[in-house]
């Protein structure tokens, strides 16, 4: 191949490689090496401090797949995604449409809705933890209720999901506004002349033309939601009775890999999650071909 290249092409190729090198090296060192190392560790009984790993084949996998807590945590994670993704998207879309119009104080509202995105997730979780507190929480005091928002296993997963939605709508909204501004105004003008009302315009023009953006958000948010960790970790004490019904699979990974020092078992859990996310992504890609509207 090199032989067929002219000297000029060779120089270009060299410079090209040089320019992508920083990204490539970053990816290899920070992403690819850890991925393969994690997969390797999942086949090992790991020693302390990354020393003395012994190969045990599929022993970790049979333990992980046989443990009910793995499946419970995976289900907890899916339940979280089922709240965060649809609500985070629908609310963000409505806000984006409203804030894309010329309303007074538009940028102020946009800033307010985007603010949660700027806050450290740990700080967000700490504030919500006290809002939800049964004894002293603002929620129970305002509504004069005595609901155990984060300790009742039937409610706790929803409470955590609400924090997720609250944190993400600003980010989704900004992406939607970007998508909305790509849609030419002529379509709406023509629709008005034809007598279509606002709702009709929204569903016949906005929704289909926005579908590439929507799909991008759906896909990235599903992956984001499936890897959730910080909310459960910060909001729920480890002696919280609802924890087992709320903890995500990454939480379980943290517990095994870092608290208990069992890296091999932890690595296996994340490989299982990785496979699960790959399957979900594959299905989503198939759906995209049918649903998403391309110009």
């Amino acid at each position, binding site marked *: 191949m090199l032989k067929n290249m002219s000297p000029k092409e060779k120089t270009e190729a060299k410079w090209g490689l040089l320019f992508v090198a920083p990204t490539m090296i970053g990816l290899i060192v920070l992403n690819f090496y850890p991925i393969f190392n994690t997969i390797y560790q999942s086949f090992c009984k790991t020693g*302390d*401090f*990354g*020393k003395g790993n012994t190969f045990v084949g599929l022993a970790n996998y049979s333990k992980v797949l046989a443990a009910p807590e793995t499946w419970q945590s995976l289900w907890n994670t899916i339940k979280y995604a089922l709240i965060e993704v649809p609500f985070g998207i629908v609310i963000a879309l409505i806000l984006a449409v409203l804030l894309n119009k010329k309303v007074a104080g538009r940028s102020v509202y946009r800033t307010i809705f985007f603010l949660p995105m700027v806050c450290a997730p740990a700080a967000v979780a700490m504030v919500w933890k006290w809002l*939800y*507190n*049964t*004894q*002293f929480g603002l929620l129970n005091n305002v509504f004069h209720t005595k609901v*155990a928002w*984060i*300790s*009742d296993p039937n409610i706790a997963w929803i409470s955590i999901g609400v924090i997720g939605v609250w944190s993400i709508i600003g980010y989704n909204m900004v992406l939607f506004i970007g998508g909305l501004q790509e849609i030419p105004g002529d379509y709406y003008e023509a629709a008005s002349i034809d007598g279509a009302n606002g709702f009709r315009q929204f569903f016949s023009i906005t929704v289909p033309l926005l579908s590439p953006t929507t799909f991008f958000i759906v896909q990235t948010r599903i992956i984001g939601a499936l890897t959730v960790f910080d909310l459960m970790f910060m909001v729920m*004490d*480890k*002696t*919280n*009775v609802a*924890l*087992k019904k709320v903890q995500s699979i990454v939480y379980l990974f943290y*517990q095994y890999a*870092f*608290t*208990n*020092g*069992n890296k091999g078992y932890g690595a296996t859990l994340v490989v299982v999650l990785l496979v699960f996310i790959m399957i979900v992504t594959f299905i989503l890609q198939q759906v995209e071909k049918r649903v998403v509207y391309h110009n």
Partner: protein
Amino acid sequence: MKKRVLMGVLAAGMMMALPMTAQAYDIDELQVNIWDNNQLAGLQQIADEWSEESGVKVTINVVDWDNYWTLLEAGASGGQMPDVFWMHSNTAQMYMENDLIYPLDDFIAEDDAIDLANYYDGIVELYKSDGVQYALPKDHDTIALLYNKAIFDKYGVEYPTDDWSWDDVLAAATAITEAGKDDGVYGYALNTSNNQDGWYNIVYDYGGQIITEDHKGTTIGSDEGKAGMEMVRKILEVAAPQTTVAETGTDSLFQSGLVGMITQGSWMINSFYKAENSADYAWALIPYGDANGNGACDEGERWSCYNGLGWAASHQVADPAAAYSLISYFCAEKGQKEQAELGVTMAGMKGVSEEFANAFPGMDVSAFTKAETDAQLYFRPYTRNTTVWEDALQQAGAFLDPWQNPSDPDLMASACDAAQMIIEDAIANE
């Protein structure tokens, strides 16, 4: 990392600006990690005195308990450990066996200020592996009963005394919880995570052992262990519900005036001493378990858990002599006395803690020093990887279940059996 670079630049700048004074060591700064913010001010004061002698700056970083170990382990695996740090019984063996801590024997042998015979045996033993001493005892702690006088006054209940048994605690807790129903006040609060400062002691009072002396087993599932946990269960019946203690925390509940009594360790005095209503708070000797039912405290019925942290240095510390010099300064008699006087903690050295009782003007903390003579001390239960079973005991499948539902004695008994299994399995896998 950025911070380090910045520090390095600053330090270099300072060195150029100042004429070099008598510098005995190759380094300008030691990074020290601890997990208890309450001790920061006192330790920094002692460290600064050492800095004046040695010319080496000491920066103490506080990392909270849970993240401390995550960070230290990640640092140990990646070669980025702090220079000097605290060691704890939960993990010491693992770090020593992997040679991640600098062996101190050679330094100790040449150091006139340190004689290991002067320290609490359990702590010295803990930080020894294959005959090599890896850390010096920093402190030791005991447990006492903390009560809120305002609550006892309000509901007309007699204050706890040093002669109380757990049955007396139960009676008082019952009286307060019943009288305080409308105010949402409970007589007692105890979470599954209050082990060293809480239910472990009751198990020992009744003759059970969380971890046997050879660190190879447990008797939590024995009749004695179950008798202890049955006492715990009775107290839980009138204590704040588990959901409440898990969400708000026993200490916060106590400081909010919603709980009459808790047990706490000497390392926590500061946070109650500095609290808003500290004038209402008082300490009593840790209660005993009247296992034989004769109404008096007999030999083996009053136990207080003790633990001792160790000052350790990283195996890759740039200047081991400087790190040891700091450790020795903390652990020699002068530093130990100062630590007690400043009310940081009681000393790891025997017989120099009396001053600790006077370190908190206006609050009588003699219950902690009294425990050393009036109670039997047992070392905090540990095995090679303590966290595995310690965490499991606090969660569903073990003691979280009876904690949720304390009115069922069978549930507590079966949780004891489950705990026995959990500990035995964990030890088998170590």
